[in-house]
């Protein structure tokens, strides 16, 4: 019976799509294998991300100056990968802040994100044994208007003069307004997002910027979540394979052989 199914499958298999199936199997096996490894071993090695050191320094400086840290996850809803990554980093920042006794202000664009952020910060304070220092009123919902939100955060910056602004998550056109005001009050600014357009602005308006995948890797590095670390590891291997395949492709093509590059084409 099983054999019959396999036979039917083979007969009707769309041969022109064989290369995609092979790529799929390679990617699938790697992802599966490394997530299992990560679960078994606890955590896989990921290189330290320099953006995280920068965040630490920024929080340290805010403490020295006795000023607040402003943190925002941007406009993203809770289910966005960038928002989830931001929450992992927030947990870490909150622990630092709790141990130093620095105020942490988080204006939120989305009520659900606000609730999660409060939970995350509360937990971090508890882990540091500083539950009594946790201030839920510093983590509040502002508005669901894009520019209204930016104007409100601007107001907070001008009034509170935080020493460090952390913009980690999903940002759209309002990123400009936030980073500009942050600059004018002389705060250290660190940003991280997966939006190409906003990255191009953040890089020149902030002191350090986590670019796309770096944000996700940073969150994996901090949380040790096997799902994330395992996937990153698998993707790293795929990047090696891709690089090698391309180099081989260039060599063969230069020699006038196109059998290799044809393996990758649409038929």
């Amino acid at each position, binding site marked *: 019976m099983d054999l019959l199914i396999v036979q039917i499958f083979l007969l009707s298999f769309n041969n022109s799509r064989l290369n995609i199936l092979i790529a799929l199997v390679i990617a699938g096996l790697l*992802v599966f294998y490394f997530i299992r490894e990560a679960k078994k071993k606890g955590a896989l090695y990921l290189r330290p991300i320099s953006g995280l050191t920068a965040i630490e320094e920024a929080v340290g400086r805010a403490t020295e100056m006795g000023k607040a840290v402003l943190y925002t996850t941007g406009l993203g809803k809770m289910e966005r990968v960038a928002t989830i990554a931001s929450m992992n980093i927030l947990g870490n920042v909150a622990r630092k802040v709790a141990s130093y006794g620095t105020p942490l202000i988080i204006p939120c664009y989305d009520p659900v994100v606000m609730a999660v952020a409060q939970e995350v910060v509360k937990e971090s304070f508890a882990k540091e044994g500083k539950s009594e220092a946790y201030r839920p009123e510093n983590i509040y919902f502002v508005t669901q208007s894009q520019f209204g939100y930016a104007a409100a955060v601007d107001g907070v910056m001008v009034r509170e003069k935080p020493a460090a602004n952390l913009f980690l998550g999903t940002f759209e056109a309002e990123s400009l307004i936030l980073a500009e005001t942050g600059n004018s009050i002389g705060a250290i600014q660190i940003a991280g997002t997966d939006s190409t357009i906003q990255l191009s602005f953040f890089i020149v308006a902030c002191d350090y910027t986590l670019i796309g995948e770096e944000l996700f890797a940073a969150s994996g590095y901090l949380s040790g979540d096997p799902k994330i670390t395992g996937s990153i590891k698998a993707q790293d291997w795929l990047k090696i394979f891709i690089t090698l395949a391309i180099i081989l492709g260039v060599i063969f093509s230069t020699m006038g052989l196109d059998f290799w590059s044809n393996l990758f084409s649409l038929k």
Partner: protein
Amino acid sequence: MPLRLPLLVVSISALFMLVQFFVKANFLDSAYQEVLDWVQIIYLFTLWVGALNLIKLHAKKTQDKRQAFYSLVTLAGILLMLIFGLSGGKATGSAFNWVFENVQVPLQATMFSLLAFFVASAAYRGFRARSGEAFILLAVASLVMLGRVPIGNLISERIPDLANWILNFPSMAARRGILIGIGLGTVATALRIILGIERTYLGK
């Protein structure tokens, strides 16, 4: 309801789509079209949930004296469009189309044109060449800005050529690297979903 059921639905539907992609069989194709229809209809409901949540939010806000007026404006806007659209049709010349053309489109377009002002202000006060990298970014940006308008051509014919070269070679190469990276991320996430490892979308 056990958590298993949605996980099972996810895996089965994803595997079905994969099998349909790789196997040529007519009975799969008709089921495939059926599934695509379903997805469109279900997705429509998710968009409605978003709209209904917004209506709920503003309906609640009308209780709050300070915000009531603005929420009423929003609710009135919704109601007005529904009445116009569902009674008078949406053809050119209808009330519905009039509001769309003279209220919605200009408001939306103006909202985003504010960004020109913000960019100008940030250009003076926010964009700093504080590192070698940031300097390269700003230099390339200026070159591209000059190269893509007629005035750049007036200064030197080389500027548009160089801007074009940058877009087609170094910038393209970096973007291709990012694209492949994002592609791998997408595939890894989709695989985790199919394998039932990724459950964030279920609020887990």
